[in-house]
């Protein structure tokens, strides 16, 4: 860097001063102008969504049968022309079963849990369910999930539940079950780190593990391996009536907006159970969904759910009256994410309306024969749903289109013989359940099928 000689400065006369004045204005401006070209860097790495690939391998787990009642397992393929063979593995042995499109074939699954595996073309289209006849019960065969919530399980004499954990793989698996009670999270050592050996299952009778009255909620997190969890809920009237059992569907994750569909009409008690796993109190509001609107019946009050605990609300008054007359469902909105279940005991049979997942494209469910309705709600835009039903032998019984509108539900009657029910949603998304009434009541929530595998975008990370 060179520096000017002070001595020379004095000798430079008038014109030099002009130059310096010009420079004195110019240089700062130049500096600022050049710096303005420096734009803040967009250092955010763009989102890298996963790539979709056709699902090439699927593994469904059908829960074990309810006590005594063997029931049946049905399998089907939703794809036009996609037939194949599913591999079955139960505790008693393994076998194969052909799966044909639009036909609900009955397989011999035994009383224990059944693992159904399919590959290639059949994989994205395989559906299955286990039914029980007397009283009516339904459980879909589901793939394993890293996390699932069961709200409203019991561990008492009247109301008790059995948690079944199935490990479909050869390696060991480990589940962490968190138990929420009315007073907060319960310390249950037997439920922490439940090991499930390869290709086997573990049944935990909560009445034996955490004997207590009141409502509980379970959060089942797979810590190792793959685990499919299911809960069989039982109600014993203790001599006042027969014991009834029903599978309690799981909820994927707590949400601030829960749409519970599948509330049978008629007399009987209805119990709403909410779980707030958060650290702040949640305030939940209840609204009834019917075909005309979503409304709050008179006298319905806000429910406060303390942090980290379960709240049971017996539905009474005007709200109960509305439900008895046959509302479609209940909308539970909360200030922080909660899980919700309505347990109905109508006509001596147990049924659950659990906050259902949203269907954006299509979903198929296998249901037992009987009087049934398809309930739709929670549309986020005006759209159309095409409902198709097939009989067990593959005969198309109905195909109808129904409009969807936000702020109101829809009720589609289905033929009694319908066993395969498919909904296809256009321009909207919706929560759907099939309510079956026969010798008892069963609710089959419609869950979008996983048709694609996700291949994550992989890139080297910062060291």
């Amino acid at each position, binding site marked *: *860097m*060179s*520096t*000017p*000689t*002070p*001595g020379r*400065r004095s000798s430079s006369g008038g014109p030099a*001063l002009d130059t*310096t004045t010009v*420079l*004195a204005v110019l*240089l*700062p401006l*130049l*500096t*600022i102008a*050049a*710096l*303005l*070209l*420096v*734009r*803040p*860097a967009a*250092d955010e*790495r763009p*989102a*890298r*969504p*996963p790539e979709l*690939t056709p699902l*090439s*391998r699927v593994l469904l787990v059908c829960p074990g049968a309810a006590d005594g009642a063997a029931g049946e397992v049905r399998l089907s393929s939703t794809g036009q022309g996609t037939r194949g063979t599913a591999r079955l593995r139960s505790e008693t042995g393994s076998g194969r079963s052909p799966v044909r499109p639009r036909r609900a074939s009955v397989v011999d699954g035994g009383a224990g849990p059944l693992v159904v595996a399919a590959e290639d073309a059949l994989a994205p289209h395989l559906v299955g369910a286990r039914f029980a006849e007397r009283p009516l019960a339904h459980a879909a065969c589901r793939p*394993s*999930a*890293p*996390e699932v919530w069961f709200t409203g399980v019991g561990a008492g004499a009247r109301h008790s539940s059995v948690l079944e954990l199935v490990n479909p*793989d*050869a*390696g*060991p*698996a480990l589940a*962490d079950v968190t138990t929420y009670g009315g007073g907060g999270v319960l310390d249950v050592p037997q439920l922490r780190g439940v090991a499930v050996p390869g290709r086997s299952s573990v049944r935990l009778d909560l009445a034996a593990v955490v004997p207590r009255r009141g409502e509980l909620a379970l959060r089942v997190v*797979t*810590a*190792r*391996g*793959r685990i499919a969890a299911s809960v069989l809920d039982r109600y014993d009237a203790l001599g006042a009536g027969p014991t009834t059992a029903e599978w309690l569907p799981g909820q994927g994750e707590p949400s601030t907006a829960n749409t519970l569909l599948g509330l049978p009409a008629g007399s009987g008690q209805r119990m709403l159970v909410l779980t707030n796993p958060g650290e702040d109190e949640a305030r939940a509001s209840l609204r009834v969904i019917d075909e005309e609107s979503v409304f709050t019946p008179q006298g319905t009050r806000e429910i406060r759910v303390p942090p980290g605990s379960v709240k049971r609300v017996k539905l009474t008054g005007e709200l109960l009256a509305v439900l008895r007359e046959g509302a479609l469902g209940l909308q539970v909105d909360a200030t922080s994410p909660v899980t919700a279940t309505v347990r109905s005991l109508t006509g001596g049979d147990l049924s659950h309306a659990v906050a259902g997942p949203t269907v954006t494209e299509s979903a198929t469910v296998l249901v037992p024969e009987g009087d049934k309705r398809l309930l739709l709600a929670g549309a986020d835009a005006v759209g159309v749903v095409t409902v198709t039903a097939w009989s067990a032998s593959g005969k198309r019984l109905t195909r109808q289109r129904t409009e969807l509108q936000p702020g109101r539900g829809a009720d589609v009657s289905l033929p009694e013989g319908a066993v395969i029910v498919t909904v296809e949603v256009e321009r909207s998304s919706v929560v759907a359940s099939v309510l079956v009434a026969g010798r008892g009541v069963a609710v089959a929530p419609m869950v979008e099928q996983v048709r694609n*595998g*996700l*291949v*994550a*975008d*992989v*890139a*080297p*990370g*910062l*060291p």
Partner: protein
Amino acid sequence: MHASVAALVVSHDGERWLPAVIEGLRAQHAAVDHVVAIDTGSKDASAQLLEDAFGSVTRLPGLTSYPAAVAAGLDQLSADGLDPEWIWLLHDDSNPDPGALAALLDAAADHPEADTLGPKLREWPSLRRLLELGVTITGTGRRETGLERGEYDQGQHDEIRAVLAVNTAGMLVRRRVLQSLGGFDPQLPIFGNDLDFGWRAAAAGHTTLIVPEAVVFHAEAAHRGVRRTSLTGRHTHYQERRAALYTLLVNSGVRSLPFQLVRLGLGSLLRMVGFLLVRSVGEALDELAAVVSLYSRPRELVAARRRRQGEQVVDAQQVKHLLAPAWLPYRHGLDFLGDLVAAATNQAQDVAERRRAAAAEQPGVAAPVVRPVGDDDALEEDSGLVARFLTSPVAIGLALVLVLALVGARTAFGGVVGGGISPLPEDAGDWWRLHLESWHALGMGTAVPAPPYVLALALLGTLLGGSTSAALTVLFVLAVPLGLWGAWRFLRVVGRLVSPSGAPRWLLLGSATTYALVPVVSGAWGAGRFGVVAAAVLLPWFAHAALGFADPDPDRRWRAAWRSTLLLALVTAFTPVAWFFALGLGLVVVAAAFAIVPGAVRDRSVWGPPATALLAVPVLLVPWWWPALLADAGAGLLLESGALPSPATDATGLLAGRLAGLGAPVAVGFVLLGLAVLALAPRLTRIPVLVCWIVAVVAAGTAAVLATITLDLPAGPVVPGLGFLLVVLQGAFVVAAMIGTQGILARVTWLRTLALRGALGLVAAVAVAVPAVGLGWFVAGDDHALGTGGRADIPAYMVQSSMLGPEHGILVIRGDVESGLTYTVRRGDGVTLGEDEVLALTPADDALTRDVRTLTSRPTPAVVEELADRGIEYVVLPAPADGDVAAALDATGGLVQASAENRSTRAWQVATAPDPEALDGPGSPLRVVLLVVQGIALVVVAVLCAPTTNRRRSRP
């Protein structure tokens, strides 16, 4: 009545001094009975002068050594039939005082045991300085006089005492003794024969006395190289050194001989290095030649020792007290260090005064400008240190700033990790290895070279006892104090360049503090951007060195060039952008200089030094940038050092001196900009302020160019690091503001109107707020990334396993399927400082990316096998692990679930043992060559930028 004395004068090209010598000889109070004149082939009129004076002269050939000449003189005496008791040896450059001989003879009479007597030798022509009062030799072969350098003769050594030897110039020796000892050793033709003779005489039981009353003036013509004889040639140092070694080796005792041989051999090598370090290449070679010439002819030594054994009558222990004490060489070593420091300080004397002095020497310029002594200086004259400190507000202010800076840096005391600082390796040896390796077993193996600052940190760490954390702690704790010191030095010189009186100290303190806080208030300090911090500390030192380009003395300009080279290379090592900026600035300044002074083009010493400083930097850093370009990692040439991502900055940040989202309040940053703009107002100092703005323009231009570049690293796009340019801009603003203030102060009496004074006061108050707020923020603030520690989400047992060898790698996969997964491979002790950049710059390994994609979507045993082949032992999904990926891996054959402390961290072990050769890579002969080039270049530049210490070189 005196005994008979024959004077023996030996001359060789001594025409310059001989007339005075002859005159001195003639003027002796004590009569000289005979004068034997010997001339050894003089090419001048020496022989004639002697012949004219003493009648006859013995002419010998030019190659005759001094011992041979003396022997010839003795023969001449015998031939003439003369038998004097005493021989008085005189050189042609030794002029005896009239009373010299008389004093010697008196002493001889008083001390009959004395066989050799020597006079006090004083410098000729200065006449007052003492040269020798008897000599001895140290264990390292140094000729020891026992005198201080340039000591004046004030009679302080005037006592007759026994010594080991006396100089042959003026030596009075008994002829009998001289002959019985065989005269001087012909092996010592010019130098050192007196020492050897004295030692032999002492061993033979003779006494040598120094007689200070006798004075001889000696020009030491041969020793000083004023006279070149065919015997010494150009290599007087060779002769002297050879003589010293010879003397020690042939005279020392038998028992100490092996020790002496080793000591002198190693010592000579050390001395050689020392000579090289002070740029005395010739002397270094002489040193080597002397050792080689002696050690390669052991027979001569053996023969000489055998001769001496015959003469010895006294035990070696009795001679020992005449030799120099054993500690003496070490004291000389200390003296040398002192010299170095003094020279360095002298070197740093400021360029402003030298320019002024040079200007004063120009014809037509009146008296030199004398720096007025300020009030502060007046106090220094006669008060104690404490009083001076307590009465100086500036000193108290400075102390306060330093204390607060240390308090502010308290987080760094326990060691610094976090932000831009990756975990540190165990010791400095790891840094050395990283620097020297051509192929790193990192990631999947890489040839990307270590970043250049690793060498600097390795050196610093090694100096601090091998501690890496100490190196970083020193950098971060001393960042502000060192920056302050450098800025003070630089600004003081700038102040004097602007006006003869310089800037007042309070202004220096304020400006230097403002600058020193730039790395802190910008947020670079808190974010662990050690590159920017180091560059900010070094920048003022570099700027100070670069001011040397304006020195009037070409030699100093070259010195400045080498010092600038070293500092610029250091700055560039930490912030590579610095070199591009320096290049731009150099071009602008040189272009401007040539536009103003076109004649400068022809003077190589004007444009040469800056050009050298710029072009030598790439040579010093060559093992880094060349292999980096070859390894497709050229992005590193523009990257900021430290772990990615580095904080970005924009126009506002650069102007206000803040990295994006970090640092002290932005508004305070703009105050400095405002002051720098206001500094353009005073006309008196406008030109130097404009120079600062030119620097700012170049920095801004560099930033604008760099901002258009996006570097595509495997881990995502990054922008070039602008932190250095931020520091330069802020530095330029600080200097501009200081100079402007100086300009206003010079005209402060003009400010008659109250309003103007009020406005000025307001500006001053706002200006003071800049460093005050910065310092306060530093002390109070605690919001920084330092001390947060690295990610510790890898199970400890895996880390232990990975320490077993590079092939025990851990594949770490983060993120989730929805928003994308990233993977890294951790080996050894993890990714440490320096390695992070190597890995970030390593081109993506597509095959591995493909494998990881397969592994996380549809894992197969084949992919797992592939991992083992590539040196992966564990796969880890740190918390929160993606459940889907974990489930898929759980179901994969070849992967065994492994435990982790954190339940939501998932880990698997690859069942197949990793391939031990997975990480082997090719060596690089090129990089080895480049490392050697760097090493040599570093030493050469370090030697070249060392201050001149050799007194013989410095001009009187």
